[in-house]
């Protein structure tokens, strides 16, 4: 692929980054204006820094597993109800990592996930309010090679557990109180840029494409995923269960495999 070009770019970008280190979004070779026009044609997007904060390591330790969280300052949202959020890794081959669609009664739209970063890049979160207004926040991350990194450190393990779902629920989770949950999905999330060592061809993209989360039969969160999400996609999200009820996750990958699991949330005491 274009790893040689990337290596050269990295050198250039590293030099640029020295000058700009520490700032939020950075303006080198900025592909955002084109991306914005492609993703949100004709729309005006306001700066959302007043209430959106993106946290990611400035320099990622593992470009294939870069933790990122998008947090909302609920006290500063001035009545803005978040309808959806689009997470864009500007320089990745498939820049839209995920789109999160929220239920009407979301207690807190903050999300955490893990992404692949293919080269030094800005990452944008574009928030769509219920009234149609758009807001964005951005962060710059130094990492490279995350999309072509080999699939798994333990290939056999990954195959045996494909589609396993796990939900992390804090012990103190209770009815009528907000809790941050984390959903894990065992899936290689092949990017299409990884080499199959036997055939010497690239492994076809195969990724978690849709995740639907409901509680007590009512929608909580719906996620459109893509290859920029890490292997074994992980999502943390907030839930304020009105009562104890069944939390159901239905996931589907790009090959049509379906995965489903239910949990009682809060757990029976």
């Amino acid at each position, binding site marked *: 692929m274009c790893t040689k070009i990337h290596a050269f770019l990295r050198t250039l970008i590293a030099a640029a980054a020295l000058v700009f280190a520490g700032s939020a979004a950075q303006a080198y070779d900025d592909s955002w204006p084109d991306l914005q026009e492609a993703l949100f044609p004709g729309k005006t997007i306001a700066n959302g820094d007043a209430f959106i904060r993106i946290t990611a390591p400035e320099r990622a330790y593992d470009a294939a*597993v870069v933790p990122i969280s998008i947090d909302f300052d609920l006290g500063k949202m001035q009545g803005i109800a978040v309808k959806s959020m689009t997470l864009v890794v500007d320089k990745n081959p498939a820049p839209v990592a995920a789109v999160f669609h929220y239920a009407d009664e979301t207690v807190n739209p903050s999300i955490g996930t893990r992404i692949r970063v293919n080269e030094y890049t800005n990452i944008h979160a574009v928030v769509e309010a219920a009234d149609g207004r758009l807001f964005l926040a951005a962060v710059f991350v130094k990492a490279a090679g995350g999309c072509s990194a080999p699939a798994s*450190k333990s290939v056999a393990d990954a195959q045996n557990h494909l589609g396993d779902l796990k939900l992390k629920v804090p*012990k103190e989770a209770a009815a009528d109180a907000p809790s941050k949950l984390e959903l894990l999905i065992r899936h290689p999330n092949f990017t299409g840029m990884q080499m199959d060592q036997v055939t010497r061809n690239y492994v076809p993209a195969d990724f978690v494409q849709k995740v639907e989360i409901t509680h007590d039969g009512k929608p909580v969160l719906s996620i459109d995923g893509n290859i920029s999400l890490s292997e074994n996609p992980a999502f943390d999200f907030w839930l304020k269960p009105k009562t104890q009820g069944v939390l159901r996750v239905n996931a589907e990958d790009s090959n049509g495999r379906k995965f489903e699991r239910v949990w009682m949330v809060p757990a029976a005491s």
Partner: protein
Amino acid sequence: MRIPSVLVILLAILATRAPADGAPPALDAQKIAPGVYVHHGVHEEATVANEGGIANVGFVIGDDAVAVIDSGGSPMEGRALLRAIRQVTKLPVRFLINTHFHPDHVMGNAAFVAEGATFIAHKNLPMGLLSRRDSYVAGYEAVFGKGSAKDAIVVPTHLVGDRETIDLGHRKLEIRAFPTAHTDSDLIVLDPTTKTLFAGDLVFLERIPAIDGSILGWLKAIATLREIPAERVVPGHGPITASWPAALDPEQAYFERLVRDIRKLIAQGGSLQQATDTVGLEERGHWQLFDSYNARNVTAAYTELEWE
């Protein structure tokens, strides 16, 4: 100007490495036991100046043949290793053993093709090496220059799934493959004659271990390794020889700390980001290159342990 001065320094370093007669230098390989030689890898990232020589590489001499254990981080280092062999013996290099697929252990392989050596590795090594080929080539060429990785990657064809013994002439070496630990292609080489164990990167000393396999698997491997009747070990990184099995203690303590603290954090609902920000930091003073690898190790360990 900045860049030219760097170049001048690099050229000066290269110049000082060449002997006066113009012949390229041999690696400095020390005899650590009868017929057993090891060259010390520096605790740095690969550079032009160190020729990728950041891992320990060695060889064992029998009555009929030589076995090389890891070829180094570049064909230049591999050739310098071959010259070091030729300083002490004329016997053919019949075996080249790669302890796993990382570049600092395999990128010197090309130097031994003309020797007609049998290239031996763990059954998973070809898969591991080839699936990382693009990134290894890019990383190598970023250091040594465009096109420099051409022909550098030579994939072993004699593969070991469990155990195998090779004969160097009145001297046998025992080869043993391990389940996923440092990587999914780790193997070790024991020279029973001198009770010397070449552990590859299953043993790190001084330089911080890098987890590219499974932290729980590595802890299991450490327990298995302790049973091996050796008197000394050649770690993949660290001094060229160390006492056995005490050499396992520092990495075991580091891994046990990571497992304990990450499990605790996960039980408390702590995130991956919190883990990389906080776990393992007490070990900083114990390891070289700590800041380059600890958070990455924590990422690998956390994403493994969260599925328990």
